[in-house]
């Protein structure tokens, strides 16, 4: 992290070197950090464990057994007797990937215009984008459904996708990213004869890829985790997304096993884990740059 050479990561008593903790302080810190990990991840591990247990193993046993005695993937198969969980996951994936693609492209174009160009009406557009930040999506729920319905898209996956094609927040994020590109660089490209499309492709895009990654993660997670909107739009169980399907599964009076519900939740967790793991280095970057000041 820091360039200074250290003999030990902790300081001796009475030292006022505040950059290094005391040994006792360091031990307490790690104990607390482990507690945080257990609290944050524990419930997920318990769910994973339940999903892997064999039908003959007592899931209500006490003390609780975290390690299944005979781990099996049976519940991941048998859950499909109640709902087509992999089909639902595919629906969610389609919407999430579509949302990533359209947000990344359209927010970059709009963010470039807002961040680097001067034109009449810019402040008006800015006010438009900012005003939506004050407006919770839940407030416009009913009217939004009326629009989607009048387009004939009620009860379709495309209707679920449509309102999220490009988010105002993402435009504002791209605007800040584009503003950080030195004007001289853009001017140099213009003098070299690059038109707007070429400037975006060859100058802007390479400079804002970090922000694009952040927008991609947020769009993916937002679409994949969304529940209320697909719940309103979809009423045919054949078209459900994964979150709607899982809530439907839990509420169904059929004898669904706890292991099968657990398997469904793990299926819902895996894709966002993959996306987050792949792109998480972009996530805390802003945090880091603020932190290395000392």
């Amino acid at each position, binding site marked *: 992290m*820091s360039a200074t050479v250290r003999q030990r990561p902790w300081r001796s008593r009475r030292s*006022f070197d*505040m950059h290094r*903790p005391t040994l006792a302080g360091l031990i307490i*810190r*790690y104990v*607390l*950090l482990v507690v*945080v*990990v257990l*609290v*944050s991840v524990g*419930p*997920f591990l318990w*769910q994973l464990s339940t999903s892997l247990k064999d039908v003959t193993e007592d899931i*209500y046993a*006490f003390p*609780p057994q975290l390690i299944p005695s005979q781990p099996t993937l049976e519940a991941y198969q048998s859950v499909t007797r109640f709902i087509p969980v992999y089909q639902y996951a595919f629906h969610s994936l389609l919407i999430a990937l579509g949302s990533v693609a359209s947000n990344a492209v*359209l927010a970059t*174009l*709009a963010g470039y215009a*807002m961040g680097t160009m001067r*034109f009449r009406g810019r402040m008006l*557009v800015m006010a*438009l*984008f900012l005003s*939506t930040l004050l*407006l*919770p999506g839940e*407030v*416009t*729920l009913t009217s*939004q459904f*009326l*629009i989607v319905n009048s387009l004939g898209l009620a009860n379709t996956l495309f209707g679920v996708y449509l309102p999220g*094609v*490009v988010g*105002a927040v993402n435009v504002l994020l791209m605007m800040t990213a584009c503003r950080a590109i030195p004007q001289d660089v853009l*001017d140099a490209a*213009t003098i070299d004869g690059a038109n*707007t499309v070429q400037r975006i492709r060859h100058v802007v895009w390479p400079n804002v890829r970090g922000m694009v990654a952040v927008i991609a993660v947020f769009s993916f997670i937002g679409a994949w*985790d969304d*529940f*209320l909107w697909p*719940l*309103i739009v979809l009423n045919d169980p054949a078209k459900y997304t994964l979150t709607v399907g*899982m809530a439907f599964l*839990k*509420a169904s009076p059929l004898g669904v096993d*706890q292991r099968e*519900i*657990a398997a469904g*939740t793990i299926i*819902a*967790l895996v894709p966002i884990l993959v996306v987050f793991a792949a792109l998480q280095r972009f996530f*805390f970057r802003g945090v880091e*740059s*603020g*932190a290395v*000041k000392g």
Partner: protein
Amino acid sequence: MRSHRWFTPWLLLLPAVVWVLVFSIYPFVNTVILSFTNARPLRGGQFTGIENYVRLAQDPMLANALVTTFVYVIACVPLLTVVPLLLAMLVHKPVPGIGFFRTTAYFPVIASVVVVSLIWSWLFDSRGVVNQTLEFLHLVNAPIPFLVDRWLLLGTSILLTVWKGLGYYMVVYLAALGNVAPELHEAAAIDGAGAFRRFLHVTVPGVRGAMTLVAALVAVSAMRIFSELYVLTNGSGGPGGESMSIVMMVKQVGSGLNGQVGYASAVSVVLFLLTLLPLLLIGWLNNRDSGGTLGARA
């Protein structure tokens, strides 16, 4: 330097502006208009003045929803303003392996609320781990009806919301903590201030702006609560629908082919006005701070 024709920015902005107008601004205006009508999905409504609002004032469903929302806000705001700050202080110092700890603390944030609610209803099941542990410790004789009783249900749901939100607000505080100069801590320590006093007199003033922001964000999102309560109660809003939130009420009265769109719009307008309160409060606080006395950031 002139590098583009006058319409280029508008071409680039076109999709985003159209989407904001069609899917945010227009629905909002439409919601306000519909709230003064008796519209239904299949036929346009007639103007009925403030009838919907008069009816709302006497609706026990709204009264329950407001109580639920109020309890949610009162419980979530202090918890989610203070605990994430402590968490951020814990993971702020770059000790070896800190990236791992930060990432795991953020993990509940990225999981779907539906997924977490399903996990919660398994943990707090009458035969779930929590009840079993309590019975084993002889703290209770019979399982606690976490998911049935109105107030216990609300408490369980609040616990879920807080647990899931910790990592999100932690990141906000991490950025703010980066701006508190370590020299201030050193100076305070040399002056003999203990850890607790340094927290109170150095850290808290340093992140006060972030704290007001977080408190307002938490209040707004607590008012918008939906998925947790919906999934925990299988969409019923608990016994007699008493634990229903405002958004659940909007969905309940407004959706379906027979939905009372006008009435649901009136509920939505009430929700919107409520969410403005914390934002107005934060604006007023900022104004007052910059208007006189010593600012937090010298």
